[in-house]
């Protein structure tokens, strides 16, 4: 295992390092009276250098809303988004940077969500990937890990969701899907058999756009388990979490 980790780490280093050999960088010209350079990408890092108007800078990389720049005199420092947006590109136009807003949220294609909740008394952690076909319709793939007092298990579903009012700040959606559930009773119980059954899913949820690429989600799902026994089982799930969009 340790060797494997080492190999993975070395492989990663070799992947990362060539990125620093790249010569071409985004060039910009300071248009405001001055541009402040911080020692690090965050609010806690002090200003240590100032670039005057008219000087050229190279934008090396970006971390969240901070940009690492290099000046004519080879000084490197970090500049925040609000200030780098005031610079001009070499053609004299304001530079264009990726700053995701509510508009990008409305036009999103992919979404990845993480949620935590309760499935009929058991704890559930789920990962959910969605692809949006139109403004209103998406397909969602879910994988959930279930952990209860009497049993553990997993759940996986594929669903079609419909969001009738995507422009609302808090926007409802409905889901209809199908999948599989696996239940494995705990070893502390008198052993019963593991079961894997097909399930049907009906759900209702709410999406709320926060900022950047970030949104909140909360949902209720009702699962109907089609068992081979005499009666079908119904499970209620409540969960909430956050999601990113791409």
């Amino acid at each position, binding site marked *: *295992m*340790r060797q494997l*980790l080492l190999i*993975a*780490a070395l492989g*990663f*280093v070799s*992947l*990362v390092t060539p*990125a620093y050999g*790249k010569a*071409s*960088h*985004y060039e910009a010209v300071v248009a405001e009276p001055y541009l402040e350079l911080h*020692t*690090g*990408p*965050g*609010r*806690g*890092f*002090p200003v240590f250098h100032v670039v005057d108007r008219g000087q050229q800078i190279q*934008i*090396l*990389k*970006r*971390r*969240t*809303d*901070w*940009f*690492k720049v290099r000046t004519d005199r080879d000084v490197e420092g970090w500049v925040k988004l609000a200030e780098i947006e005031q610079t001009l*590109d070499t*053609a004299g136009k304001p530079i264009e*940077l990726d700053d995701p807003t509510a508009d990008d949220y409305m036009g999103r294609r992919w979404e990845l969500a*993480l949620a*935590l909740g309760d499935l009929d008394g*058991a*704890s559930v*952690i789920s990962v959910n990937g969605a692809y949006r076909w139109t403004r209103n319709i998406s397909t969602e793939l879910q994988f959930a*890990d279930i*952990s209860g*007092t009497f049993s*553990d298990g997993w759940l996986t579903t594929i669903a079609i969701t419909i969001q009738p009012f995507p422009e609302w700040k808090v926007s409802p959606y409905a889901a209809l899907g199908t999948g599989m559930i696996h239940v494995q009773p*705990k*070893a*502390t119980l008198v052993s019963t058999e593991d079961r894997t059954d097909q399930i049907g899913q009906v759900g209702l949820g709410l999406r709320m756009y926060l900022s*950047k*690429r*970030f949104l909140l989600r909360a949902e209720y799902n009702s699962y109907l388990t089609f068992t081979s026994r005499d009666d079908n089982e119904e499970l209620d799930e409540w969960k909430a979490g*956050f999601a*990113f969009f791409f």
Partner: protein
Amino acid sequence: MESRLRLLLLMVLAATMSACSVFGRDKPPMEDANASAPVISPEVERREIKRPKIDTENFEVGAFAGLLSVEDFGSTTVYGLRGRYHITEGLFAEGTYATSSALGLTSAEVLAGFDLLGSDRKYEYYDVSVGYNLLPGETFIGRNWAFNSALYVIAGAGQTSLGVDDYFTMTFGAGYQVLATDWLALDFGVRDHLFDLEFTSGEKKSTHNIELTMGINFFF
């Protein structure tokens, strides 16, 4: 006489105006020059300016190793992998997977000679957390060295596999990250993994499992 004078004045005016217009023709304003330019249509195609993409480094991955104290089962070494996505300069999401070396025996196991966990004497967990860089700043080593660093707090949830069973686990912790370069960081962390352990007797017990780790993370 008066009309002759008026005529003379008019002639002078006309002469100066025409002189002005001639003068104006000699030095046309800038707009005129541009307007006459398209007479020769330019054969040069407009160049597509392709701007280099700005490399974003919002992801962080790393490996760590450390000590894990498993309640009742003693301390053991733990090692794992960690991935982070930085949402803002303060907020990040983290996913962790780790596994331990063989666990020790509980006193009950030693005294009564039975086995609580069976053959799988391992503590294995994964969790998903949200962290916040509480104190971003610099760490000074001597007079000449300053490293960017951050103290973060983190909370999350996941599953722990102890023996054959899985347990829903809450995780709380804090960590200290020192960046050696912009893309390489040392991470020192403390986590408390909380879950309800259930014994064969059916008795439930809330356990705290403290973990101390040190890791190396890469930003990309």
